[in-house]
């Protein structure tokens, strides 16, 4: 706008029509990335995670080229070499009546049962690495599935309101009120005996997809409820009304206007849900309703070690340490992501 004062034209708008190009300020994602890179504990945790994942991915290399064992075949009458001498993997018990056998303990030799054997003579270290692949796979994929489902449901409930919101919210309430482990146990017990057959979807009883789907489902309300609240708060905002005024469809508004606004919260949830889901998987496997044999996970190995806790504690301790270290790293990294993206996020409770 310009106004004529005393014959002179005074500019009041943005003055420099041609000036040095101003660098656009970094977007929110880039800013968050910079903040994470400056957060030393989050970086250390991220590096630790990568290391654990890498080591687990290299499980076949360890089993094949270093330990020369098959961690999924029992080796009850086999022998191994300790200090140059050949000894049986399962030794005759010396305590009590001398009945039963005790697996070999940690040898400290990576080529021959580094952490000892379990009660079927299988190499514990190799099993830990293979088990880690399953634990991580289940943790990460169920977190992704859970967050994706929760985003869809949370955005739908928050955007449309009305009866859609009423139905979805009651659904969240019921699952929320149901103790998660009990719900998971119910689903697992039924599905693990027969597998899932829903229309075109067929999942076999022993498949890893079952724990992934079950764990993802039970935690949907944890993520969906806070997202629904955020979307409801967005509904009255002017930019949404502008989009409505431009004639955008509901689908387009949800995809282009609502989703980018809740996405940071979803990303904040991802590492924390991965940790939670991995812990849930290990607990379910410990209760024998998670990963099924012959597959292994850190939880099943802790369960295997339970009977040998006092004679060969290393099985339990090592598997638990893997779970604990991974979960700590995920949580520390997740805290870093939250501080960078959405410092005020209310992650527990949320309602």
């Amino acid at each position: 706008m310009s106004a004529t004062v005393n014959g002179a034209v005074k500019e009041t708008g943005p003055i420099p029509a041609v000036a040095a190009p101003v660098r656009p300020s970094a977007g929110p994602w880039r800013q968050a990335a910079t903040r994470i890179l400056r957060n030393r504990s989050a970086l250390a945790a991220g590096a630790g995670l990568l290391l654990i994942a890498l080591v687990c991915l290299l499980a076949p290399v360890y089993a094949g080229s270093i330990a020369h064992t098959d961690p999924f075949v029992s080796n009850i009458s086999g022998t191994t070499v300790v200090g140059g001498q050949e000894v049986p993997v399962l030794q005759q018990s010396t305590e009590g009546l001398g009945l039963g056998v005790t697996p070999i303990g940690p040898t400290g030799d990576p080529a021959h049962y580094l952490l000892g054997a379990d009660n079927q003579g299988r190499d514990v270290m190799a099993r830990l690495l293979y088990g880690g692949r399953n634990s991580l796979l289940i943790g990460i994929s169920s977190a992704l599935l859970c967050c994706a489902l929760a985003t869809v449901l949370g955005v739908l409930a928050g955007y449309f309101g009305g009866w859609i919101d009423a139905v979805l919210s009651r659904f969240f309430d019921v699952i929320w009120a149901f103790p998660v482990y009990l719900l998971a146990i119910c689903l697992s017990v039924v599905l693990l005996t027969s597998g899932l057959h829903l229309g075109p979807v067929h999942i076999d009883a022993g498949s890893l997809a079952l724990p992934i789907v079950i764990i993802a489902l039970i935690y949907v309300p944890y993520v969906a409820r806070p997202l629904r609240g955020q979307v409801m708060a967005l509904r009255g905002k002017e930019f949404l009304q502008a989009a409505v005024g431009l004639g955008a469809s509901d689908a387009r508004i949800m995809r282009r206007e609502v989703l980018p606004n809740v996405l940071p919260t979803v990303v904040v949830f991802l590492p924390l849900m991965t940790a939670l889901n991995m812990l849930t998987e290990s607990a379910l496997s410990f209760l024998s309703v998670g990963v099924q044999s012959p597959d292994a996970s850190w939880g099943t190995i802790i369960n295997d070690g339970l009977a040998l806790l006092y004679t060969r504690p290393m099985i339990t301790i090592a598997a638990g340490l893997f779970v604990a270290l991974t979960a700590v790293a995920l949580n520390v990294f997740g805290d870093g992501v939250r501080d960078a993206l959405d410092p005020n996020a209310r992650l527990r409770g949320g309602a």
Partner: protein
Amino acid sequence: MAGYILRRLGAAVLVLFAISVLVFLIFFATPGVDPAARIAGKNADPATLEQVRASFGFDRPLPVQYLMMMKHLFVSHDLTSFVNRGTLVIPQIMDAIPVTLSLVVGAAVIWMVLGVAMGTLAGAMRGTLVDPLVMLLGVFGVSLPVYWLGEVVNLITQKELHDSVFSWVPPLGYVPFSQSPGQWALHLLLPWLTLALLYAGIYARLLRGELIQALNEDYVRTARAKGLSERRILLRHALRCSLIPIVSLFGLDFGALVGGAALLTEVVFGLPGVGKLTYQALQNLDLPVIMGAVLYAAFFVVLANAVVDVLYARLDPRVRRA
């Protein structure tokens, strides 16, 4: 207040109904195997299958089946296990409930006291050594598998150091309170501490955050301007408001504990509670026991949540109008 209580209990009844329907559908209507075969357990003979079909009415429509199941569970209490033939399920659960409650209530008391004390301390002494310590404990609280921690505690107290420092620790197991209160507490002490340590960390961390936020509020500045002592401001003004979210979280966690972490802790410490019962039933796929234990535990959780909400409404009048 009376209106709020009625509304809250009404909602709880609705949720209970929904949960029972959900469990019913999971066990009886999931496509796949014949539910009679599931309930009768592995390798059941045709006569048993026929008996199961008759007693659960599998030839009748679903709503009738639902009512028959509820009748077995809550009216006639005659749900029987088919794996351990003839064992009545409900009395088994009733016997196990006091054990679970002993574990959870004791742990809850310890963790609330510890958590509030540590959180307040960390909030008051920001920037000192207490602070990172509480943060660390909080991370451990959400990261360590509780059953694994229990096993490590067992390993140390029952085996490694049992001959020296921990000679006073009794063998794993449970002694009823009515039999000997001292032994009851002694047997439960380590399970209590194991559970409480993790939750205390989570709560301390949460409370610290709330306190720091509260200490920046206007009402705290007003209190300072009035010349109140810093201790009074912290304990009477800031802490009081900061405790409100803690109480509501407590309701959720207490419930989740009965059906979750306590289940695992019972298995590890050999406490014959509902969790141990469920665990044993899972080992031999004893479905009636699992069904009964899940429903009873879920019902208890929902009721506990309702009670906490009512208490919460007493603490914070704003909630009653929500």
